[in-house]
């Protein structure tokens, strides 16, 4: 299994500002994923981040709004840019296990935008 940590665990931000969320994994992984979970709802994939290449974004998500970095095989960041109250969500990173289809999730970052 993989142990994943995220920073910050929660934050309250002002409209128009940006927040960068960090995801750290205790082992090297090829693929990392960023999800959004709006209040009381399910998880929606934002993008897939591979080390050494541009992130691949899902429909409805763009790089200008959610820039992602993947500098090495154990770390990734997601930035939520020019935030509005509609960006209030839990943001989760996950990694795929190397020998199975199992995905491991971080604890999430609870973002509130005022």
């Amino acid at each position, binding site marked *: 299994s993989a142990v994943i940590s995220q920073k910050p665990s929660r934050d309250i931000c002002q409209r128009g500002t940006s927040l960068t969320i960090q995801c750290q994994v205790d082992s090297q992984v090829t693929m990392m994923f960023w999800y959004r979970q709006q209040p009381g709802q399910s998880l929606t*994939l934002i993008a897939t981040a591979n080390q050494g290449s541009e992130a691949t974004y899902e429909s409805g998500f763009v790089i200008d709004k959610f820039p992602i970095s993947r500098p090495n095989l154990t770390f990734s960041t997601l930035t939520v840019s020019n935030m509005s109250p509609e960006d209030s969500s839990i943001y989760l990173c996950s990694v795929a296990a190397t020998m199975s289809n*199992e995905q*491991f999730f971080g604890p999430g970052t609870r973002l509130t935008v005022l």
Partner: protein
Amino acid sequence: GESVGLHLPTLSVQEGDNSIINCAYSNSASDYFIWYKQESGKGPQFIIDIRSNMDKRQGQRVTVLLNKTVKHLSLQIAATQPGDSAVYFCAETNFGNEKLTFGTGTRLTIIP
């Protein structure tokens, strides 16, 4: 796009009883299904998975049933315990493709 959905958004079960959580999926091309458990303030945790060449798979106190004819997936939890209280999500994908499509979730509450 195609989606994965659930029949019941909430479910309350007496402690010790069995619970069944249902999920309907619409993408007939999906061949791999996973159930996740999400406790308050935590990320989803893998419970059990099943591939489309099976119709039943058992784990510890949990069983997943897959009915491809009607595109239906269920999670059975036997002898429920207070620690089973959580939101349960089904997810679908194609085996080897790590991109998951999640269902809407069911909140399971175990009544002591």
